[in-house]
């Protein structure tokens, strides 16, 4: 141990869906990084437009003023038919639609946006818009909170935390979609140097809108007696999100980017594990977040049977972990590494990965800068090294794709599924290969294991010294796979080491992994292919960000009776 650095966990351990599907948010998550920046750079916030009528319909504008630029969330509130309200991608009406504007919108901009933003994908925005999004009310909680506030009382905390949000986004589109500004045009701005900051800012401001809306409607209902939400209670409301298969392929189609996300996370874990001693402050901090995490897990609700079982196991494991900590204080050498190694032997994957998150919490100074490594220049990934020989490529396949080469595609279950894009909503779907026609023409290139095996077979017939440039000239069908293999040669965490065409494959594991990097909590699967989460729950609102402690918010304080 002495003199030998504890290495990062290898891809064969990390890049398995059963583990990736247990990831939790960390200090490096995009949401946490955004709020640290907003606070440290002393961003200010204003609401220059509030034209919401007594029915809760109209427009509002929320501005976030940074050191160099202002960004404005233009919010349109609607009154859809209850029957038309849906989280599905086939929905055409929502309770609220949003656009994040680059600057401060004029009235002309607001008029222009009023014609397109409510249409979402059916409309077009301009390069002045950085994102478009929409949200629906969580109807029961929204109406409950409205009734309480109108009657002059605060809602019950248990009722609020059981759902955790007044509104739920069903899509947040950035990065050049539907005419919005491409990410390349803003990526040089410091505030967008990390992934998904546009989307996170949009959701953060939309959360403020959701509370303002319910308070407005309470005032309308009872002008003399309505009250606003108490700050502590308000903070327990995040912004919900419903995510489905549309997000799933992202982890496969951006190998360089995913590598950087996970490499940063693993480097953070390794740095913590390599700490020779734990300071008293760190031990206290860890104990505090552990206790708050246990409380939070106790409040984690889901109707999904498998997730419910996982939560039960997690609760049990956290108790086991607590008992272990009571017997084995963090005062020995390499205490964090010892704790991590203990978890590998004694608790579930869900608890191991939760512990990974907890281990990072007291070590902000050591790891927070790793968030700056999480973007990727994907354009540079596009070139193929055609001078590589067949023999060299075969070595890369053996080295990084042994997991794929072991898959038996002779078994029907191993290729039961295929990924395609739906005609109606241009969204990814998972289909049944045996049921659908013209699969080969329409299939998305997400069957990495199968494609690697096909490539490997084709290489067997080639001279070992043959250059890939010449091989690909004759076999262009393997080009996308060769590109992936070359990316993986320098990006160890680029590949999810699973067969994504298998009948056993659970898309929700992909969703959970990506959402953990966003900073999501309280994963609530609705099926094996879509999930509800909460973002920014317990975060300070814009009007209190300056006065709240930095980055202490992601878990609720310990309740007195816990």
């Amino acid at each position, binding site marked *: 141990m002495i003199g030998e650095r504890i290495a990062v966990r290898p891809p064969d351990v990390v890049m398995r869906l059963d583990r990736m599907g247990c990831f939790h948010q960390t200090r490096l998550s995009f949401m946490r990084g955004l709020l640290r920046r907003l606070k440290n750079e002393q961003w200010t916030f204003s609401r220059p437009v509030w034209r919401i009528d007594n029915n809760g319909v109209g427009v509002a504008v929320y501005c976030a003023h940074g050191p160099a630029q202002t960004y404005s969330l233009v919010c349109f509130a609607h009154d859809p038919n209850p029957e038309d309200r849906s989280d*599905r*991608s086939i929905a055409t009406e929502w309770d609220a639609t949003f656009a994040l504007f680059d600057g401060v919108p004029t009235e002309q901009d607001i008029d222009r946006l009023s014609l397109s933003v409510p249409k979402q994908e059916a409309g077009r925005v301009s390069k002045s818009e950085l994102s478009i999004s929409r949200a629906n009310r969580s109807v029961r909680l929204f109406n409950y909170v409205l009734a309480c506030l109108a009657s002059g009382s605060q809602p019950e905390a248990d009722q609020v935390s059981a759902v955790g949000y007044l509104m739920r986004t069903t899509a947040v589109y950035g990065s050049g979609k539907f005419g919005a500004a491409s990410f390349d045009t803003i990526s040089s701005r410091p505030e967008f140097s990390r992934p998904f900051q546009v989307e996170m800012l949009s959701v953060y401001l939309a959360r403020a809108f959701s509370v303002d809306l319910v308070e407005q409607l309470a005032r309308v209902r009872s002008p003399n007696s309505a009250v606003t939400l108490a700050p502590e209670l308000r903070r327990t409301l995040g912004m919900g999100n419903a995510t489905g298969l549309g997000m799933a392929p992202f982890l496969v189609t951006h190998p360089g980017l995913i590598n950087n996300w996970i490499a940063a996370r693993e480097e953070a874990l390794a740095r913590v594990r390599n700490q020779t001693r734990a300071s008293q402050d760190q031990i206290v901090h860890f104990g505090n977040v552990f206790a708050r995490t246990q409380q939070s897990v106790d409040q984690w609700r889901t109707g999904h049977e498998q997730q419910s079982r996982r939560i039960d196991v997690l609760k049990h494991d956290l108790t086991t972990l607590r008992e272990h900590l009571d017997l084995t204080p963090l005062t020995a050498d390499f205490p964090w590494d010892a704790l991590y190694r203990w978890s590998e032997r004694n608790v579930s994957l869900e608890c191991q990965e939760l512990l990974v998150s907890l281990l990072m919490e007291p070590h902000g100074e050591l790891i927070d800068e790793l968030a700056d490594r999480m973007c990727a220049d994907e354009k540079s990934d596009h070139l193929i090294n055609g001078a590589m020989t067949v023999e060299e490529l075969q070595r890369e396949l053996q080295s990084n794709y042994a997991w794929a080469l072991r898959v038996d595609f002779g078994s029907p279950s191993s290729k039961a599924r295929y990924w395609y894009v739906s005609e109606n909503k241009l969204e990814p779907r998972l289909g049944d290969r045996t049921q659908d026609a013209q699969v080969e023409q329409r299939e998305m290139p997400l069957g990495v294991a199968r494609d690697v095996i096909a490539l490997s077979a084709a290489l067997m017939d080639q001279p070992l010294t043959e250059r890939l440039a010449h091989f*690909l000239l004759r076999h262009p069908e393997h080009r996308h796979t060769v590109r992936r293999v070359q990316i993986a040669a320098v990006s160890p965490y680029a590949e999810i080491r699973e067969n994504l065409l298998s009948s056993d494959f659970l898309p929700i594991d992909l969703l959970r992994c990506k959402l953990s990097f966003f900073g999501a909590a309280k994963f609530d699967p609705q099926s094996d292919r879509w999930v509800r989460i909460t973002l920014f729950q317990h975060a300070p609102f814009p009007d209190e960000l300056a006065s709240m402690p930095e980055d202490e918010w992601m878990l609720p304080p310990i309740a007195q009776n816990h």
Partner: protein
Amino acid sequence: MDATANSAKSLRNYSTKEAWTLARNASRGAYLTWGLAEEAAYAVGWLIERKLPSLAILSSLLERNADKQCQTLAPTNPHGIWHPASSAEFLCPVVTGALLTDSSQLLGALETVQAGPMACPALFLPFVAAHSTLITTPLNVRWHGFEAVCSKASIQIVFGADDLLALQADMVTVTPSMQWPESKMASNDRTDLSIEIQVTLTRFASRLLVPESEDSREDGAG
């Protein structure tokens, strides 16, 4: 309504990201493999960034080559002059461009590359630029009526800007240049697309789409 207004109404402004996605999907739907469709998208993105014609040329290329096997549009031999197997065919600029960048380390920095006849040669330019970067040498690229100097970041058209829209060239020649092109930051991120081009590209891209059914909606995503 006058012609200008009519013309403006018939254009849609696309982000580079949208153009990239449309280019990739349309190319795959028409005839290219996924890996080559990604190359087509890269080429379109590079041209857009430099305010050069892009999707219109791609549309012409895809209409010309739809449903062909891309190997029939590839150079038969990576050595010597690059030409297609059949005298009735024209090289695909994307397939040929991919071969160029794949071969960068194998070609000498002083080596001349000749490829022809080639369809829609403007789509070959991004690959020449990438090749220039890989061999750290500026490159002169020309076909009858057109000449330019390329590097990864820049292109300086010496003459024949109108010929960028050429549907074919008998021979495209790439040689080392004595000087780097004038440096100009590639900063454009939008392109206007006519309805006609949108319809063509969308038609090809839609070959990849699967119609919804009640089963797929029940079984599908969010």
